[in-house]
């Protein structure tokens, strides 16, 4: 199998972004990846935007529990506790 060219191209980098962030790239690949980043504004921005997106995903609001459901489940908890105490 032919080895990839020494310098990584942008189209290859965007497919390796997740593995890079997960820390699962082979050391030689990681070096190629970072070498390319240093000389490519487009890929630097791509990685930065990916990180910003992931941070935004982590801040998505979650729904609050509806009061009726909360009361029903608290009752179920009381029932369990009271039956356990016999």
């Amino acid at each position: 199998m032919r080895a990839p060219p020494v310098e990584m191209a942008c189209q290859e980098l965007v497919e390796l972004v997740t593995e890079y962030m997960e820390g699962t790239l082979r050391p030689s690949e990681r070096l190629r990846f970072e070498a390319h980043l240093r000389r490519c504004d487009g890929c630097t921005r791509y990685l930065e935007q990916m990180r910003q997106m992931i941070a935004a995903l982590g801040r998505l609001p979650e729904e609050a529990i509806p009061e009726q459901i909360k009361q029903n489940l608290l009752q179920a908890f009381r029932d369990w506790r009271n039956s356990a105490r016999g």
Partner: protein
Amino acid sequence: MRLYQTDDELVGALRRGEETAFATLLDRYYGPMLRLAMTQVHNRAHAEDIVQEAWLGVVQGIDRFESRSSLRTWISHILLNIARTRARRERRSVPFSALEAGDGDAGPSVAPDRFFPDDHPRWPHHWASPPRSWGPSPEERLLSKETQGVIERAIVALPDTQRAVITLRDVHGLTSPEAAHLLGITEGHQRVLLHRARSKVRRALEEYLGDPLR
């Protein structure tokens, strides 16, 4: 003083029958559990049923909980077991073509026409149309209700397993081994799904944020 900061405190209080501990658990995890259930079934009412059934499972199982996993992971595990059973039932009653189970496509993360072709004299496979700036304060823009709506819709549009992975990893912040274990897949497979999911959501965001008027 904030009550119940650690799993141990919560579990101990629950076992003692302290209602405030269970109320804390409900407040903290109901929303995330509903979101997780929605990655497994397509019907919101079914998702709400799954969540309630899972909470009953939590109440009944709290004495058996061992700290091998976090409380959060354990609750997620209960929920996913219940969801898997219900999803199987749902698939049997809905035409197969209407549901998209499975991993989804294996297309490129970025449209090939964004890059110079292989025979370009100077920059083959380099950006022809690089990513445009998302403005001076992208973090702020990403927090707006409108942009969060774009993100939510992009997540809903993902194939089931991609949606589950990105929810567990990026929305809920679970680790790679935690997410892989919960979904019953290898970490490698999970990583591929995560990559595809992130690429799709990024594309939706780029399309939306790329408009200088927004």
